[in-house]
């Protein structure tokens, strides 16, 4: 049985790396005494499959992890209770919010996810100047960048991968540095565009404040959904994610929009999100 977990990562723990988090998960799954399926061979490892890496220092409301469980023992597990069972074992700031069973034949997270929505704080920027910078970028036909690939300089165009940008307003009160916030939907196919690349591509380049991944989306036949299947078990405190119609103008700017229950402490219900400056 393959299960897919959605978890958040925020606060101090954001400074752990993708590899760190993988090791943390391995220990937590052992502590939870789940019937983990293991690889064959000399040093059997639990079969875990991680999604797109989150850069060290970035927060997230939507990280995913697939875990293979041994059958028939896995049938005994109350999946609805799993988030409550796992979260206390995880470091403060990592919380499991949803879980569902998926098919082993489903494409991997890395193959399936087509775009990510990011909320990016830009320290020292006024809302106005960020607004015009975003407008200029969206107006450009091409955004040529040079990046290093296998030790060689490769020319690339970022513009097709920038699916959506919108300025949300000023940084929330808890931000370490004041400035402005914007949201960006960046493609992960054919290659994943990182927020740092986007910031560097502005003219002049923008500094990076707090960055939070809000969604990972799978676009299938024009419809967009999140990587969990229908009928996923979602915790009471977690923010639900509704399948969305792919009309950018209607899209929400944070998970808080999708639910009555706000998340609170991590600042994503900031009223600034209401006064969005939308551009497409």
């Amino acid at each position: 049985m393959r299960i897919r977990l959605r978890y958040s990562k925020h606060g101090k723990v954001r400074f752990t790396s993708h590899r760190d988090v993988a090791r943390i998960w391995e220990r937590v799954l052992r502590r939870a005494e789940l019937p983990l399926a293991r690889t064959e061979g000399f040093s059997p490892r639990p079969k875990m499959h991680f999604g797109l890496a989150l850069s060290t220092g970035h927060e997230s409301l939507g990280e995913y992890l697939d875990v293979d469980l041994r059958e028939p023992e896995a049938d005994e597990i109350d999946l609805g209770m799993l988030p409550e069972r796992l979260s206390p074992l995880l470091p403060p700031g990592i919380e499991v919010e949803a879980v569902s069973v998926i098919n082993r034949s489903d494409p991997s997270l890395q193959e399936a996810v087509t775009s990510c929505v990011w909320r990016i704080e830009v320290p020292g920027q006024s809302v106005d100047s960020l607004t015009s910078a975003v407008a200029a970028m969206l107006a450009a036909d091409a955004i040529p960048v040079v990046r290093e690939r296998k030790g060689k300089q490769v020319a690339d165009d970022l513009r097709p991968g920038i699916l959506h940008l919108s300025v949300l307003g000023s940084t929330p009160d808890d931000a370490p540095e004041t400035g402005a916030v914007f949201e960006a939907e960046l493609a992960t196919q054919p290659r994943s565009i990182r927020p740092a690349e986007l910031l560097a591509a502005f003219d002049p380049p923008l500094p990076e404040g707090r960055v939070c991944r809000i969604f990972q989306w799978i676009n299938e036949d024009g419809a967009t959904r999140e990587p969990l299947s229908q009928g996923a078990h979602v915790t009471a405190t977690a923010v639900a994610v509704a399948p969305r119609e792919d009309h950018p103008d209607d899209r929400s700017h944070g998970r808080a929009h999708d639910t009555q229950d706000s998340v609170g402490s991590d600042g994503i219900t900031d009223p600034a999100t209401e006064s969005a400056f939308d551009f497409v």
Partner: protein
Amino acid sequence: MNGLWPQLEPLLAKVAKPARYIGLEDGSQRPEHANDRVAWLLAYPDTYEIGLPNQGLQILYEILNERPDAVAERAYAPWTDLEALLREHGLPLFSLDTHRPATDFDIIGFNLSAELTYTNLLNMVDLAGAPVRSADRLEHHPLIAAGGHCTYNPEPIADFLDFVVLGDGEEIVAEITEVVGAWKVSGRPAGSRAAMLRELSHVSGVYVPSMYDVTYDGSALAAITPRFADVPETVEKRTVADLADFPYPKNQLVPLTEVVHDRLNVEVFRGCTRGCRFCQAGMITRPVRERPAEQVRTMVEDGLRRTGYDEVALTSLSTADFSGIEDLVRDIADSTSNNSPVSVSLPSLRVDAFGVGIATQLQKGRRTGLTFAPEAGTWRMRQVINKLIREEDLYSAVEAAYANGWRRVKLYFLTGLPTETDEDTLGIAELARNCVELGKKYTKSPSVTVSVGGFVPKPFTPFQWFGQNTVEELRRKINLLRDATRKSHGVQIKWHDPKATMVEGIMSRGDRRVGAAIETVWRNGGTFQEWSECFDLDLWLEAMAEHGLDPDWYAYRHRTETEILPWDHLSAGLHKDFLWQDWRDALAEVGLPDCRWTPCYDCGACTGYSIEHIVASATPPAGGSQGTGQDLGSSVPVSLLGRKPEAAAVGVE
């Protein structure tokens, strides 16, 4: 309470490996500070990756936080990138647990296990906002303390420390807390710091350097004498009589990011009686105190369940010598919890087939490499150092390793040992070549890595009188080895930088005058000196010259029997005449048996403190006490101490 976190947060986004500064480990605590609680900041003067696994620091962290009158947090040396940012933003050293400024603590206690970290200690004290010299510190500054193996000669750093702890810390931290707590509650009136330090000097095991006068006769040390009649002439180390009373750490810290020794560690015994003459750890931690096997089993079982680790190390100076080790290993290997395979490792493996037999039982997964420490290349040399491993012991160990599927063997050696000849040095190459030949019977391309370290004589060992080899001599010997193995397929030589060995030698046996040079090196930017990319011999030589100190005199000079040594006013229990006799025996190539299994030869470590070896089982390790020629048969010629309450009657007083 997040203290400095809001200011630190934007800085962490700019530094390498920020996860080492966030705390949050499973097992970490967020203690509540209060005026009637002494706040300890337990500090390790190296990076988080090196310092976090330190068991001594973790034990004291738990013991202190269990007390109603103390709180303890942790700090590690920030890497140079974060240090620069902290200084640029005017931020101090901080605790990991609540990100509180170091200035909020009453005591900053350093664990010192390597001489080259001394400049990091100064740097951390400075980052904590305190003057580096104890004489310049005022009532409101934290007390700067140190413990750990290096503090058996604390003289090079004596001017920077308010107090030093000798020996096991489990019990003494309570007594220190009481003295400092009373002072804290009194409001620390102006001028009271010295009186409080004088009171601390009455605690057995506490050395307060400022309470002693050091006099010199030309370049030689004339005397180190207490300045007051109530300050002890000799400071004795503290020894915990029975490890069973201290099943710590109970909640080993589980780091969120990669560190060295990233596994569950369970200490199975403290002390060692093999009597290897170069080994300071073995000498200063006597007697042997084994943990009851049942307690070890419980600590392993609980620890694995709590941490989620799939590896446990049974730690000690020579784990295969634990009495009843075979039963213990079988039990742990059988009781692999729930559904996950657990691997057990012994950090120091005995050099014989018995040791490999245990390793075979333990290593369930892929067998990659095994490490042995024969330490010297010839039997003659091994008799001098009292590491009584016969060649057949080593060959049987190596053959057993290859026969059981290991492909790589690593051998540790010292060079620059007393009486060492080129024949002894080349013996290392000979052993390595023979090991490769043995391996060819079992695998196509056996590999033997030889790791060579330059020998640094340490205080409280029989070799404390020996003038160490010069940088040039060590380099010549290493080149001799490299030349001798250049055409030996399968043998790789690795070595420790002889220049670092020299500086270690100056610190290891230096006196109080060396402190000025340490301070100068630090002021000139010489931190992280134990990192090869940061180490700079010129910084040290220039600093020594600036203060009129002769590095050769400190490192290379043989000491005489009558010379006053900088640590003569401190005691690890060992009689100086025992050590001198052992030094003469070494030069005469006479070995000394393991005293756990033979009558006492009165080194002083047990008799001086009215304590005894404690063994966990009446069954001596199979294969006997390796190499010493002792046939142990099936009975143990020492008395077994009963468990509680009898053992408790044997006090430390």
